């Protein structure tokens, strides 16, 4: 199965409570079981960037419809202890 997790936290890059641990732990377990897992997270300024491996631009110029107009975003991509994560950064 191909599963996308959308969450506001993922340990250890961005963690406020238990949610981050669950998102990471579940994703890891699902991959061990042979499923394809990707995560979508917001790009925070206070993330643990040292815990993201190979951060790079993955989708340039994503225009997200908003109030009848659109907001310009970039999407970055990197691995957090083996999990493939996409970080959405609005401009």
């Amino acid at each position: 199965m191909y599963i996308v997790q959308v969450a506001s936290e993922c340990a250890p890059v961005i963690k406020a409570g238990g949610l981050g641990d669950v998102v990471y732990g579940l994703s890891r377990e699902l991959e061990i079981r042979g499923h394809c897992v990707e995560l979508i997270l917001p790009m925070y300024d206070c993330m643990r960037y040292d815990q993201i491996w190979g951060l790079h631009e993955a989708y340039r110029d994503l225009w997200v419809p908003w109030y009848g107009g659109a907001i310009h975003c970039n999407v970055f991509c990197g691995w957090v202890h083996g999990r493939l994560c996409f970080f959405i950064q609005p401009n």
Partner: protein
Amino acid sequence: VFLYSTQLGGYGCKDDNMRFAFFSKAALEFLLRSNKRPDIIHCHDWQTGLIPPLLFEIYKYHGMGNQRVLYTIHNFKHQGFGGAEILWATGLNNDPYYFSYARLRDNFNPFVINFMKGGIVFANYFNTVSPHHAWEAHHTDVSYGLGHTIHQHQHKFTGILNGLDYNIWNPEVDKFIPAPYGVDSFSEKARNKKALRERLWLRDEAEKPLICYVGRLDDQKGVHLVHHAMYYALARGAQFVLLGSATESLINNWFWHEKNHLNNNPDVHIELGFNEELSHLIYAGADMIVVPSNFEPCGLTQVIGLKYGTVPIVRGVGGLVNTVFDRDYDTYHQPEERNGFVFFDPDNNALESAMSRALELWYTQPEEFQKLAIQGMECDYSWNGPGEEYVALYEMIRHK
């Protein structure tokens, strides 16, 4: 430019709700534009509550008709609210439709939309993080006003316990403790207790049990009972170690006062703040851990305690009910499956009754106490079981 920025992991901004509404929209837009078509979109908590409505009211018609959503609620306390501007911004352009009681309108404020309710109503399935908390959310007040919505959607509601990462939390391989140990080398745990006492300047007396509390200090965690547990432990001749951080200044001041007050007491240590490394040593060194929560969707500390052979004394709420089984009174598990002590009323007497049973056992039947601790270590609360349950759930909604 960072839209998502605060010190505390992305929360606490006044317009957080609008920001996460945008994040939900952007996540779906990204999937659409990059031609990703997952079988399952699994979203979590209020921040992503608008994903199910957006998927099934908008993105379904743009080529994402085969995607299915699981919505997991980790905490009902924060649900995410907004006015009509959320609808206008995200493109859910039909105010009367979305402000209907059957959809996004908050159950108690007719002028507000509720993100979490939207997630519940539109998701293919939704769950919370333990079976007993699922029951509580449906039948008691811990779902903060969403009880009726859950009732209406109970056919697609379940509870799945969180797993614990045994790569990090495992006394056999833990890098933060001086003496690794397991079920077969349980006596090594005593060396960690000694190390913990040395580190925190507690007196090293063989016949004193060590009780700990690790976690946030706030109303959810039953802070008044934590406080009482500390003094009750001291009164019964035990030692107490508290590692916690308070989010409210009143509680913070209260515990700083206690810390100063008990500064010269050789049987208690209060550490305020967050210290991952010390927490490992506390779990390894303590004999018992108290978890007297007011409500607890799943709870992690009691499960860590079990793995480290630290006998949990917990209040029977939420996930605590599904993980800790009372040694003396549990009616669903055989004596050899039981692993701790449970009390139910949120008051000092109930806490004392459970703590005194635990202390009594430690003082008078140490080999029985050790047996109980080892039974706790043998419980499996890894991701293995929950992983299987989530996969089964994905498979089920995928073919709906």
